[in-house]
């Protein structure tokens, strides 16, 4: 029982991060029908933004502190929202009416470009850097469980962000326009919607979530380096597909599920080396029976 609860908490914390990243993949897929592979690099840029912003903030606010951390997260989030919009504007917008495969390959190109530019010694360098302690960390010992305050915070922040995102998408004019654009761009344009503005907003929103996920991930990781986004990014992509690509609750569910699977598989003694294998085998099984993902609807291609 203790073991189970402990893995549950660890899994939820990891899954929350996957969920935040997966939302970005699924939102972009929703409006543009392609996978933005550079999304995982925005996550990395989020962590690096915080890394470079932190010393400046420390001059004004004490660190580690909740307020200091919030300010750093906010600034990094804004930077990354801008980067996400810039990537869309420079790399994807000129290809708007090209085949999706062209855009997909461009996305891989953008991703590699960011990763390897950032590894250059005049940018971030390829070495692993220690991530600053932004928050006062304590471990709570409850009922024989060890719960770190960081893990609690990750779950808490994710819950707030998911609620906020749900509100934006379901209850605001911008969100309704996003859903309209995702269904039919031409029809949305005929309503007076500026499609480019909505797509830009979608990239900004997804990148902001990725930045926060990147910082939360960095808080748990031993350090940060330019390729740190690849692993969580790949998993979050899988999570988005698992939940049903294009479906927001699906991305959140897929992320949590993947985090839990990975943690539980890793927690079984003797199996920890196989945890990815086990987690992904279960995923393949799920997708065999639900090819459109857990919450995705099987759609019929219209001809």
């Amino acid at each position, binding site marked *: 029982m203790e073991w189970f609860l402990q893995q549950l908490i660890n899994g939820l914390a990891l899954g929350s991060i996957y969920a935040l990243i997966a939302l970005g993949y699924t939102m972009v897929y929703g409006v543009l029908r392609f996978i933005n592979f550079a999304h995982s690099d925005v996550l990395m840029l989020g962590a690096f933004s915080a890394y470079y912003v932190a010393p400046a903030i420390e001059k004004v606010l004490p660190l580690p502190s909740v307020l200091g951390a919030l300010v750093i997260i906010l600034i990094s989030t804004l930077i990354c929202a801008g980067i996400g919009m810039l990537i869309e504007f420079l790399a994807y917008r000129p290809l708007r009416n090209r085949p999706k495969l062209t855009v997909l390959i461009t996305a891989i190109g953008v991703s590699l470009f960011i990763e390897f530019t950032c590894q250059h010694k005049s940018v971030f360098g390829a070495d692993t850097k220690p991530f600053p302690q932004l928050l006062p960390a304590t471990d709570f010992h409850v009922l024989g469980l060890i719960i770190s305050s960081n893990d609690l915070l990750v779950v808490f922040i994710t819950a707030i962000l998911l609620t906020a995102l749900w509100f934006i998408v379901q209850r605001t004019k911008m969100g*309704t326009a996003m859903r309209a654009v995702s269904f039919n761009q*031409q029809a949305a344009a005929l309503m*007076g919607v500026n*499609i480019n503005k909505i797509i830009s907003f979608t990239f900004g929103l997804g990148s902001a979530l990725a930045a926060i996920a990147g910082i939360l991930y960095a808080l748990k990781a031993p350090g940060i380096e330019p390729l740190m986004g690849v692993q969580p990014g790949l998993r979050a992509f899988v999570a988005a597909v698992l939940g049903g690509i294009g479906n927001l609750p699906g991305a959140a569910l897929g992320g949590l599920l993947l985090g839990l699977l990975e943690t539980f598989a890793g927690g079984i003694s003797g199996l920890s080396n196989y945890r990815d294998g086990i987690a992904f085998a279960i995923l393949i099984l799920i997708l065999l029976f639900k090819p459109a993902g857990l919450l995705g609807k099987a759609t019929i291609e219209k001809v």
Partner: protein
Amino acid sequence: MLEIDHLEVSYGSIRALHGISLKVPEKSIVTLIGGNGAGKSTTLRSISGLIKVRAGNVRYDGQDITNKPAHEIVARGLCHVPEGRMVFANLTVMENLHMGAYLRKDRAGIASDIEYAFTIFPRLKERISQLAGTLSGGEQQMLAIARALMSKPRCLMLDEPSLGIAPILVRSIFDQIVAINKERGLTILLVEQNANLALSISHYGYVLETGSVLIEDTAEALRKDPQVRAAYLGG
């Protein structure tokens, strides 16, 4: 109100419109008839900014709107109800109507226009919180027209409003089109396969064939024209 001068449109190397010219006077109903591939939908799509025009120009309210982006053209009060209705299947009926009012900020005006939409299409009120994808074809067409009216257009372009709709609903939709024209003073440019029906409610008509205007005349005269009768009105 709407003037099209020598409009040319190509899809790749295929020429779809070979210099079409037409005029839609204020507060009139003008119809475009013609067979498949005559260029009727292409004409509407190039006016509303969905496709690029190669040559010629479109003037609305005395201003050149050729090749302006679609969202700017709606803002000028020219709204296009596209073929196949294109309602947002993933949004509710109410959300669809609000999307129609996307560019408006007058909450009171929007609310009263939604009420107006429900008086002309009472079925929509019954389905207010249903997803638009669950509506029947006829109901979707009603929603598409109501949604377009929400943008407060002065000119409405309707593409095949009778397509794939139960005959009993077609009549009621066409009655509402006439009512919108008479009561609200909306100018209407109608594209329709059902030439008989379209000419019966129109003031003026153009017969298109392979991307050119073949004949133009008052709707009255077109209905009597032997050539038009033979080709489009079933003799």
